[in-house]
């Protein structure tokens, strides 16, 4: 199919982009790797697309005050090739090859992935597992929202209709950070049937401060707090038993299958967390 008609505006500044969001049914266009597909299928029919590609200062990766900051317009491929990401945000480095395909990663943006918040997408779960935060610019200036407060519901986030996500920040890895990542998909690059991004602190031979963020098993990326506590006690099977998500059935897999797969992933990631050394 072809998109329904819409108007197009290439924003020249962040302020101009925010001003344009005042028009009815306006949508922000970043990498477009989800949005343009939905336009083609007429699943979304905005009246105006505000193209933010080319806005200055929204792209790039930097280390700031113990954090890694990734500009919203940073392409997946750029993050995938970045030494800063490999060294200081290793969880994101692990996730990157699973995101779509090379041609998608050349165009798709980090900010777009977080803002769209597909429940089966990798990066929202990584942000949640790392306890990161999101920087947002809106009509009333800038604000920061913690990952735990950002994902609200199916494709719903703390972003309002006049907001633009400008960057994400995650804590920079140190020698005690442990990360793990695994996902199961029918074909490489497909959205996950189930996936898990995890972060923990080394504690002697074990781990503490475990954060597990599952994706593809609910309406948002999901923390599994009971399992986190059990994993910190070294009780892997109990952590699997304690998983309490209730995934829906769909054409790809039943909810029961997805929950089983979540347990499989938890065992795999638990091994990564206890074995991984920077």
């Amino acid at each position, binding site marked *: 199919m072809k998109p329904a*008609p819409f108007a*197009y*505006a290439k924003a020249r500044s962040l302020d101009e982009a925010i001003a344009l969001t005042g028009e009815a049914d306006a949508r922000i266009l970043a990498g*477009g790797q989800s949005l*343009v597909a939905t336009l083609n299928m007429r699943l979304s029919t905005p009246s105006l697309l505000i193209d933010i590609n080319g806005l200055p200062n929204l792209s790039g990766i930097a280390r700031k005050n113990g954090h890694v900051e990734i500009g919203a317009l940073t392409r997946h491929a750029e993050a995938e090739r970045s030494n800063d990401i490999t060294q200081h945000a290793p969880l994101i480095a692990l996730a990157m090859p699973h995101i*779509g395909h090379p041609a998608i990663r*050349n165009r798709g943006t980090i900010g777009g992935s977080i803002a769209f918040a597909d429940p089966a997408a990798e990066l929202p779960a990584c942000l949640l597992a790392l306890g990161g935060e999101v920087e947002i610019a809106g009509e009333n200036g800038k604000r920061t929202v913690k990952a735990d407060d950002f994902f609200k519901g199916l494709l719903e986030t703390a972003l309002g209709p006049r907001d633009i996500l400008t960057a994400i920040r995650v804590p920079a890895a140190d020698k005690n950070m442990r990360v793990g990542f695994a996902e199961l998909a029918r074909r490489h690059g497909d959205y996950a049937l189930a996936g898990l991004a995890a972060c923990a602190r080394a504690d002697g031979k074990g781990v503490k401060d475990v954060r597990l963020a599952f994706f593809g098993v609910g309406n948002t990326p999901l923390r599994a707090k009971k399992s986190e506590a059990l994993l910190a006690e070294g009780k892997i099977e109990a952590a699997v038993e304690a998983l309490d998500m209730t995934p829906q059935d769909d054409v790809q897999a039943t909810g029961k299958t997805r929950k089983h797969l979540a347990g499989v992933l938890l065992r795999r990631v638990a091994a990564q967390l206890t074995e991984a050394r920077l």
Partner: protein
Amino acid sequence: MSHRHIDITLTVNGERITERVDARTTLVDFLRETLSLTGSHVGCEHGVCGACTVRVDGAIVRGCLMLAAQCDGARVETIEGLSDAGEMADLQKAFETRNALQCGFCTPGMLLTAQELLQSNPKASRDEIREHISGNYCRCTGYHAIVDAIESVAQSRGGK
């Protein structure tokens, strides 16, 4: 300023082009319908099949997931230009020799994707080749011959 129609100036296969495009026209439809460059194919129209793969500013993208309006100032390359330039004549020859195509619908996208891999990773393994072309569907060959063809070029370019 926002408009339903956008004036763009870009280079396509080295040629400078200025056109007025409907804002909703995708890049691949612009190439096919306006410029009659029909080597880039339209398959799924939602970024899954890879038949519309083209190069924009040196990197492969889905021609169906980018708007022509976004290509103002861009350098676009398609199978027609890359074929004429002879940049991947060896890859094309290997596809022919190894029977890596049957109907040919996926082939332009497959070639552009393979060429990007071989440029960034000239010694790509079979697993890396499979991973890299995972976003390009072929419904004829079963992929083995395509992997064979790309691997043979990796070996010949690598001087093995």
